[in-house]
């Protein structure tokens, strides 16, 4: 196990270093963001899911390599191809690490949305398509990427995917891809009518999914949908076109990936308040890293559509928080839990620091912008 972790860490750092050296200055910050996300998955893997098998690590590193390639590509077609490859490998990991299930495969698997994603991006290659349709395909692909896990939500035992490294990987891939696309390749029509209505449509989709989640009894499955919505939230924030909201989207990406990995898989233990804090933090309640990001991303704006979209996002988040209304601690039973180790302590510190970032709500965007420019300048 230790050997695998070392190999994975070294490979991750090596790939990042190579990518950073080869990247032009405008792309260097993206490599750093990728390292933060994927490195965070490895670092906060409390249950050692990744190093359990070599195949997990191999596919994980391949996915990272593809994402790095994607953010270094010069053309949109090549970018989408690498992005599709990363999503395909992510879906492969979902299947590989799934618990036993039954039934007709293609309707209940993450492979199907990965293939639909590929179809949508291939369809963009057809030259006679108008740009609106092209962009529509891109939007469809991004929404599919965000809701990959929705396809298998009713499968037996998929609830245990909540808090898994596959979910974190999915957010990392989808988030990085959508952020990069929004920053580099997004066409001008995205900010014009009727596509500017996406500022409302995307949160509306999230609100509908959130309403749907009320009917799901198991909290883990609701959590899966919460993080699907979080991916869409990242895209929405990047799509708004405002710089500080874009930085908030980057923060949301990193926060989302790290928070998933910090999730405790077991039922909440009322005696261990640290575990409970981490568990509640995964829902973005006040006092968590995610809550800070929500505040940043929903900052006031002069754009009416973004305002309305913000209100819809708040509604969707609240619907998830309403899951706490019937929260019940069970009588304590002996369960075999991993001990509280340095990773969990680090997770706790990170969550607390993330929560306290709210105090810097005015100065953080400026600091982040400066860091972004400096990283590009270093390269």
């Amino acid at each position, binding site marked *: 196990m230790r050997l695998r972790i070392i190999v994975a860490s070294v490979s991750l750092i090596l790939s990042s270093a190579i990518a950073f050296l080869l990247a032009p200055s405008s792309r260097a910050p993206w490599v750093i963001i990728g390292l933060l996300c994927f490195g965070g998955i490895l670092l906060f893997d409390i249950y050692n899911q990744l190093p359990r098998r070599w*195949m997990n690590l191999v596919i994980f590193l391949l996915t990272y390599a593809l994402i790095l390639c994607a953010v270094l590509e010069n053309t949109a077609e090549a970018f989408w191809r*690498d992005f599709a490859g990363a999503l*395909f490998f992510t879906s*492969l990991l979902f299947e590989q690490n*799934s618990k*036993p299930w039954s039934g007709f495969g293609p309707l209940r698997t993450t492979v199907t949305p990965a*293939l639909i994603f*590929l179809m949508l991006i*291939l369809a963009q290659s057809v030259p*006679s398509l108008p740009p609106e349709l092209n962009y529509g395909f891109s939007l469809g692909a991004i929404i599919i990427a965000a809701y990959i896990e929705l396809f298998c939500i009713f499968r037996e035992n998929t609830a245990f995917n909540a808090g898994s490294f596959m979910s974190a990987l999915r957010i990392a891939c989808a988030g990085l891809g959508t952020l990069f696309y929004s920053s580099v390749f997004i066409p001008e029509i995205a900010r014009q009518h009727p596509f500017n209505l996406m500022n409302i449509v995307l949160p509306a989709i999230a609100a509908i999914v959130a309403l749907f989640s009320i009917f799901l009894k198991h909290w883990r499955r609701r959590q899966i949908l919460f993080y699907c919505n979080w991916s869409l939230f990242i895209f929405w924030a990047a799509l708004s076109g405002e710089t500080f909201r874009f930085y908030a989207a980057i923060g949301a990406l990193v926060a989302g990936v790290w928070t998933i990995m910090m999730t405790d898989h077991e039922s909440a233990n009322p005696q261990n308040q640290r575990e409970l804090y981490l568990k509640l933090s995964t829902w973005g309640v006040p006092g968590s890293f995610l809550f800070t990001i929500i505040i940043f991303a929903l900052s006031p704006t002069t754009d009416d559509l973004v305002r309305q979209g913000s209100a819809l996002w708040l509604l969707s988040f609240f619907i998830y928080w309403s899951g706490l209304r019937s929260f019940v601690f069970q009588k304590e039973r002996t369960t075999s839990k991993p001990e509280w180790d340095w990773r969990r302590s680090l997770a706790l510190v990170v969550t607390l620091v993330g929560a306290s970032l709210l105090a810097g709500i005015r100065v953080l965007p400026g600091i982040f912008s400066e860091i972004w420019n400096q990283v590009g300048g270093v390269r």
Partner: protein
Amino acid sequence: MSSYHLLLPQCTILIGVLVLALFEIVDKKFHHRQGWIVHVIALSLAFVQQLLLYRLPASLFVTGGMILDGTTQLFSLCVLLLSILIQINRQTEKYSSQSQTSILTLGVTFFCLFAIQSNRVLFSVISVLGMIWLAHGALATETKLKEETNLIYSGIIRGLIFLVVGVLLSILCISVFGESQMDEIQRVIVRGRLRQPPVFAIEVLILFLGALVLGVPPFGGILGRARNHSSWSLSLGLTGLFAIVGTNIFVRWGLLVFTRPAIGVLELEPLTTWNILNVIRVISVTGLVLTPLLAILNKNIRGSFLFFILNPFVQALFALSFGQREILGGAIAQVVVSVIIIGLLISSIQALEFSPTATLKEWMALGRTDMVACLSIILALSSAAGLAPFYGSFLLQKTLSINSSFGVVLLLNMVLSGFYVGRLLTLAFHGGTADSSQPTISRTQKMWFAAQFIILIFMGIFWQPLYKYGAYSIRQFFGEV
């Protein structure tokens, strides 16, 4: 330098055959290990020789009916590489202990090289005939005794059918063009003043033979049921060899004879009134739909794999049918990728030891016990389907960017191929007991899978060198740009 050095690889292979035959005669008892080593050495030597024959810039050698330009070189290397991969994977094959199989398989490679490098129609027909009979013989040696006679009979009939059509083609070529040499035929066509019906007949026959050898559904049948009870390496490998030869027929006999680069534009134009490009497109479109569809409907593992490994070849054929220089290079490079795909597929499926009648029932939940082999198969098939990030997806993107309504069929092919791969992937981890992994393959085998997979994925991610190599191979035809 004499042009007979073109025959060096073939001579090496022939020597290999002779040595194997000598072993059998002298030792009376065939040593599997020795025979395997000789076989691999012969193929490796031939591969190196073939590689060294490629001179920069590419020169055309036309002597005594042989040719060696970029495409021929590339296809020859593919054949030799695939043969090596087949033989490497046969090391652990239970059936590979028969001496006849080894000799016959080497003979198939021998004739395969002739079929690709021959510049005359009749020589190629004879070579392919040799391939058919030897392949059937090799496949028959790996089946039960009572099946052998039927398979030999089947092989003879199939060979004869091919021979009849091939001889008819040769006769027509000589009577219409006065020649059976490809480049000479093209010069006659360019001069014009030919009666169209015979030329049309020649084109139809060429396309028919090409489709038959390639095995594009519904034109499959050259190898037929002979593959059902033999080893995986031979059944899949020989299918791949025939597919390469079939692609060569389409390119060498079809495109490079009946079309030429249009002036001022980087694409091909037909030389006859009957546009051969359109017909190739129709054939490939039929294959694009039927190949994955038949693979999906066939619940037998072997049967479905035998259909599906033709998918990258059919996609390449579809890309070739547009005759655009930018796509041609990519399509030809796809053949190289297909070789690696078949190699990975053979090595990984052998590790699972499926019976010939294995269906999807046996496949179910296999990933939980033999994850590495299972995933290797799935990734190989994903590459064959043209999924991202493998090379096929790049070719699909390039092909779709051509303004043609046939792009819809390509998307349909993607849907069907994706469904096929998705079904296998999900069934592989379906049901079963979680984490009941009982590794049955050795570390060496895993490293071998990993090496092939890494090559495959690198070809997909860093497609530029491969694409350039494919484009360079047709440079001689298009001229300097």
